[in-house]
């Protein structure tokens, strides 16, 4: 779209980020009748899916196994049919509160036509996540070329058509790392091994068997890369088995290789949002939201991987829809947000977090609760209590720290209450 510089841009809903979360949010907001703008920094919308050319996307949503680009394409098509202003190669550089509390936000955006201001009643933040780097897992030694994050390697191979290494060591067994082990092998590189500091792989079982076992790539659990060798280009890495955070002496080994690929975690991208000082959740590293994906800043919503790291894109799209619809309702004063109160959810026992962190009450229908456990366990009992009263109990089997779980909570159980504290506890249960 060509920007008309003379006119200040004004929208009901502005979605930041054009990945699956942002696209779903823009579609949902537009369907509620809002004037919607979507900002995307890159040349094309689709987000990280553009480089995920393997299949396995959309099983829940479309009951089909799609590749990342196919999944993104379906949403891009839907988006194209709606009157949404999509600004690509456009970067959001700052957000300010615009006037008093319900007047919305003033955004500054930059693209090749200049720096413009954009006024919006609401914001949906869908900027995805970034990858942790070798420095964030404190790898030492030299700093040669040849150290890549899995996402970089994926981009270089799948989008640019170049091999970043021919003899690779992979650190971290997240899904992206597992998928890259397979991808590199198929492109003719040899993968010397995959090292994981945890006692179990952090990616899906399906990926462990399809991406490693099928190709005979060794998986070293409880092990890590300590140092990198080589001054210009990676020549080897030093690996070791770890016990309570300390390398076990006689297991320290040197593995010759020309590249190290890291899949050591994702961090939700919220720097821009934090300029508004929303309440954050230390565990998810995203903002604290209610069931409408609304943050503690009025009219600001969050979804997708910016909210918390998801395993399945289907849930990402779902959170985008929720956020987009809620933003549209808010912009047209139909959200009823000024009535009622909020209940606080806390995660306890073997739970790392639960999302949403708040519930606006009274409300109807069911809310999907998403959570992750700290430790894998064969069985676990989830108990939800409201002000001391048990309102829901469910037993889960084969809980894995790597996998996000979901449970629907019917809000009628709160019968008229409009606040209080809700404890969500996962306890171990004898079989």
């Amino acid at each position: 779209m060509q920007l008309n510089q003379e006119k200040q841009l004004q929208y009901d809903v502005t979605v930041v980020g054009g990945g699956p979360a942002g696209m779903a949010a823009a579609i949902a907001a537009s369907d509620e009748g809002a004037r919607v703008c979507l900002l995307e920094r890159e040349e094309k919308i689709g987000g990280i899916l553009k480089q995920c050319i393997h299949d396995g996307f959309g099983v829940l949503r479309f009951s089909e196994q799609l590749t990342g680009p196919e999944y993104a394409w379906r949403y891009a098509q839907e988006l194209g049919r709606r009157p949404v202003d999509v600004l690509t190669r456009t970067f959001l550089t700052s957000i300010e509160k615009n006037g008093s509390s319900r007047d919305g936000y003033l955004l500054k955006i930059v693209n090749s036509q200049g720096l413009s201001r954009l006024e919006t009643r609401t914001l949906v933040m869908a900027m995805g996540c970034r990858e942790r780097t070798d420095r964030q897992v404190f790898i030492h030694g030299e700093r040669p070329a040849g150290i890549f994050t899995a996402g970089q390697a994926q981009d270089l191979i799948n989008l640019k058509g170049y091999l970043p290494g021919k003899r690779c060591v992979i650190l971290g067994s997240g899904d992206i790392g597992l998928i890259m082990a397979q991808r590199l092998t198929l492109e003719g590189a040899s993968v010397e091994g995959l090292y994981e500091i945890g006692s179990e792989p952090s990616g899906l079982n399906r990926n462990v068997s399809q991406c490693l076992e099928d190709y005979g790539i060794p998986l070293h659990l409880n092990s890590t890369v300590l140092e990198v060798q080589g001054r210009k280009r990676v020549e080897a890495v030093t690996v070791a088995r770890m016990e309570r955070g300390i390398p076990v002496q006689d297991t320290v080994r040197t593995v010759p290789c020309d590249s190290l690929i890291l899949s050591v975690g994702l961090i939700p991208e919220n720097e821009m949002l934090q300029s508004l000082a929303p309440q954050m959740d230390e565990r998810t590293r995203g903002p604290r939201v209610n069931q409408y994906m609304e943050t503690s800043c009025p009219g600001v919503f969050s979804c997708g991987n910016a909210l918390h790291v998801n395993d399945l894109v289907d849930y990402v799209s779902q959170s985008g829809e929720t956020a987009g619809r809620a933003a549209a309702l808010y912009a047209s004063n139909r959200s009823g947000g000024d009535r009622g109160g909020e209940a606080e959810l806390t995660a306890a026992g073997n739970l790392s977090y639960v999302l949403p962190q708040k519930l606006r009450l009274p409300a109807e229908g069911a809310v999907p609760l998403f959570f992750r456990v700290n430790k894998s366990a064969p069985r676990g009992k989830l108990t939800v209590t409201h002000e001391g009263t048990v309102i829901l109990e469910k037993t889960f089997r084969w809980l894995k720290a790597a996998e996000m779980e979901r449970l629907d909570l019917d809000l009628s159980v709160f019968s008229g209450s409009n606040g209080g504290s809700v404890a969500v506890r996962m306890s171990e249960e004898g079989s």
Partner: protein
Amino acid sequence: MKQTPDLEKKLRNVRRSLHREGLSTVQAVLHEFSVRLSGEVGSWDEKVRAGYAAAGKGFRGVLNDIRVPGVEEPAMSVPLLRDKALEGAAYDVVIVGGGVIGCGIARELSRRDLKIGVLEKEDDAALQASGRNDGMIHPGFAAAPGTLKAAYNSRGNRMYDDWARELDFEIKRTGSILLYRSLWMHLLTPYFKRRCRLNKVDGPCRGLSARQVRELEPYVTEKQKGGFLMPSTAYVSPYRVTLALAENAADNGCDFHFQTALLGVELSSEGSSITHLKTNRGTLSCRVLINAAGVWSDKVAEMAGDRFFSIHGRKGTDAILDKRCEPFQTRASGMPSLLKRNRHSKGGGVVPCVEGNILLGPTAQEVADREDYSTDAHIFGTLVKQLDLNRELHQGQIISYYSGVRAASWEEDFILGPSVKVANLLHAAAIQSPGFASAPAICRDMARWCEDILSEQNVPIRDREGFNPVRRGIPRVREMSEADRDALIRKDPAYGDIVCRCEEISRGEIRDALCSSVPAQSVDGIKRRVRAGAGRCHGGFCLPRIIAIMAREMDIPLTGVTKKGPGSQILMESTKKEAPLCS
């Protein structure tokens, strides 16, 4: 040379000190006016102790040739490039070393109508100490009064504002605080003030109560009982300063030859002057040679027939914290290093950067390998203890870490000025901390000495016509006012295309870095010039795009793009395995 009784006495002094250190296996002999140590010891630490035992005994320098079995002292790394590009070239002045000192001298000399060449063995300026330090413009307090360090530091500090204005780099003059951990340290305030006066530190320097410390730095930990404020301390980006000097020198006619190592020097038959310089790119001639070779300055002196000191590498590691920490610390603060054990390092502490990040460090560790820029978990562990100095800082905010190696002489002072032995040789050697802070003063004096030598050779010293002291840097688009930024983008849309999202760097800035007067040659070169890829994701998102931009602008294949010069190729090969076209 005849040994005077005086030198004999000094030598005995050295032997006595060695004996006291339990290093009786070390031999000390006279080498011209220096003392030369040889023999074998059991560890690197012993070699270091021997070097210090011989220092301060009144010799011109200490040559430490002690061997440590099992410890290798790797030679200088040499560029892979071999050609004849410099064969037969003739310069008035050749400067060896493209650090802040070499580039600063080149810039200072470029005011004159002289033919100047800078030889730098790496593929860019500021790749050794000058790109791997804290960027702190020390006030001039730390060095002992009477040393060259003390004299040059406060003078250099004062000259930085002019440099910043002319050369267009950011400087933040917010001062620094020495923290007092216990109440008795307030007794030191008068002593500190006296030291400031002697070293001509710009003031007013003053003692602070615990409350005053907290008013200035609200997040320093409660443990502090007061401090000493020195307002003239400033902060710069060291590689940006060095590159700005190089660019301005190049704009004024200096030739920069990267990937060019000085490998040998030919002297006149009687050995009293330099005639030719041998490099990996041919043999050239010069009227004056300036040794600004950092950790290798002793080797350059040796090549040039003036061996009188040796350098030992002292590694320092720093950690870089996320920009979000900017509000938590405005001034460097650290503990005064009063203990003798630590006297060879600047205390270390929490140091703000001009870019908004915060540094922890530097540490100090003697190393045999002078180009060892690795980091290790053990040193890192001592480094992160500095986090205790500020209650808002924690390990999770660390986005990166790096090491640099200081060029220390055993006398622990700068070696500056004309060689006493070779007529057309000048040294700016052993420039360790506070070398960066002292650089403007060092470079000015070095240039004057060089002009003196040229005058003696009857070379006329005329001003360069059209000399322009002003250099305009690449626009820092994200820091511009809204209106200026908008106007710039309308003129050149490339400044509106954001490539690096953490630091908000546009394609226009990256392109500028690739075509400046000392252009970036590698991905790291771009990072140092415009910060693309220096943010919290460390190039996670933008690396593939930067590679593509570089390949296009430099007109090279994607596989030709390197991280840090030849040998550090990033992409191995295309996955499209079509048969190559017949040629």
